[in-house]
């Protein structure tokens, strides 16, 4: 009787565990922001260029992941000031290039109040909501999305260069900066071997 009871309990445990498993494969959507962050400390001009190797950015999370990417995408393009002064405006340009090629203008913004660069700042939607002050280059945007939104694996480029330059209407205090960001995602498929 005891062994019967024990076996029944073991079967119950097996059934309980059968109701739970690790999904295989599963996808981690890697968050890979590509920034060009400039300091405009005690001044009114900025100019910053950053180059990213896409595989290196993925490797920062795990060196196993670059070979497991099966899709990439862009979920936003933003320009923001982490700690904007209370008053003033900014005027600037964001450019990009792939694999060391010539920079192409992606967007320009004109006389944007610092307040509108607070938080998430301006985004791609701003070309719809604020077309007078935020202008995207349609051809450059289409090219950017076409290259970085790949449903088959890593993009067919190795590096992306992002450049941000411009000026403010007033001299800004120490610690003021401005960032352009491409919100890039890559799907790493885990398991399934």
């Amino acid at each position: 009787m005891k062994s019967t009871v024990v076996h029944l309990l073991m079967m119950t445990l097996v059934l309980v565990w059968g109701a739970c498993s690790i999904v295989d494969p599963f996808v981690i959507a890697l968050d890979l922001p590509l920034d060009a962050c400039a300091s405009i400390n005690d001044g009114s001009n900025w100019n910053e260029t950053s180059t990213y190797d896409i595989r290196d950015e993925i490797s920062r999370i795990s060196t196993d992941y670059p070979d497991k990417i099966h899709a990439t995408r862009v979920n936003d393009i933003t320009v923001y000031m982490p700690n904007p002064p209370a008053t003033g405006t900014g005027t600037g340009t964001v450019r990009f290039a792939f694999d060391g090629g010539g920079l192409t203008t992606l967007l320009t913004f004109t006389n944007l109040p610092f307040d509108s660069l607070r938080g998430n700042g301006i985004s791609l939607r701003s070309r719809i909501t604020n077309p007078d002050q935020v202008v995207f280059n349609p051809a450059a945007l289409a090219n950017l999305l076409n290259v970085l939104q790949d449903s088959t694996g890593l993009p067919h480029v190795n590096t992306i260069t992002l450049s941000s330059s411009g000026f403010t209407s007033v001299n800004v205090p120490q610690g003021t900066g401005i960032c352009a960001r491409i919100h890039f995602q890559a799907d790493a498929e885990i398991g399934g071997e």
Partner: protein
Amino acid sequence: MRNLHHISGPIRTAVLLGAFVLLCVQGATAQSDLENVLKQYTETTVKGYIQPMADLFGANMHSGLYPSASVPQTGLSIRLTIVGMGAMVGDDQKNYSLALPPSFAQRTMQAPTVFGPKATVVRDPDTGLEFKPSDGIIDATLFPLAVPQLTVGHIFGTEATVRFITTPSIGSGKFPKTTLWGLGARHSVSQYIPESPVDIAVGFFYSSFTVGDIIDFSGVTIGAQAGKSFGPLDLFGGFSWEKSTMNLSFTPSAAGSPSVNLDLDGENTVRFTAGAGLNLSVIRLYADANFGAVTNFSAGLGFGF
């Protein structure tokens, strides 16, 4: 397996069950890829993904603590029990509302939690942008936990219980090391009531569970039990207050993102327990159902005297 044949039946069964529990716990708990998933979120967005685990694990931690309401007044007793628990995963714990990036006209999407399904891509028709959250990682209708526990008594109607299990990192770092421990005590109240028709006890238990480097659970429960024995059959019920907290502490993988240090409280704060046990001399079996904000079940197989 053949090497175990010379060991007596109950002990061999205990060894097999112990190995089984170790394997299952490794398969059921978080892993380093889970940690990497969490690191894709911020303090604002990670809560929805992981909260169901805080709720269900918190409820499991406080289950299966006793096989009856009886706590003898005196006499040496040592019992090793393998306890298995499972919390029901509700449909509402498989998805949550996740805010989409600012450029999306659609403000939110239904994203999978850690127990959720495969994630889908959302495309904004105005901008051509796309967004996708991570998939759920655990496919479960019942979220399990198992742990060996040792109960020692009895002095002045009091017994002490400890739980401990640690599992190494396995699968080339896919599963991080996990460590669970807990301790508590129960005290007989019915010993002070000579005419009491039922056994009554009160107790408390503290638990801690660490998963890898970024997830720490802790919890405490205080409760009372009442029950009656009919020969080898024990029937019991209980009521308890409990609190469990999952602490997440990590730096998101996105450069420049602020560190996350977040406490998520488990949903269960009170529970009613109904259970039954069989006291078969050396072997003791019990099972119970627990009702509160989270419904869960537990069962134990104990060996001892």
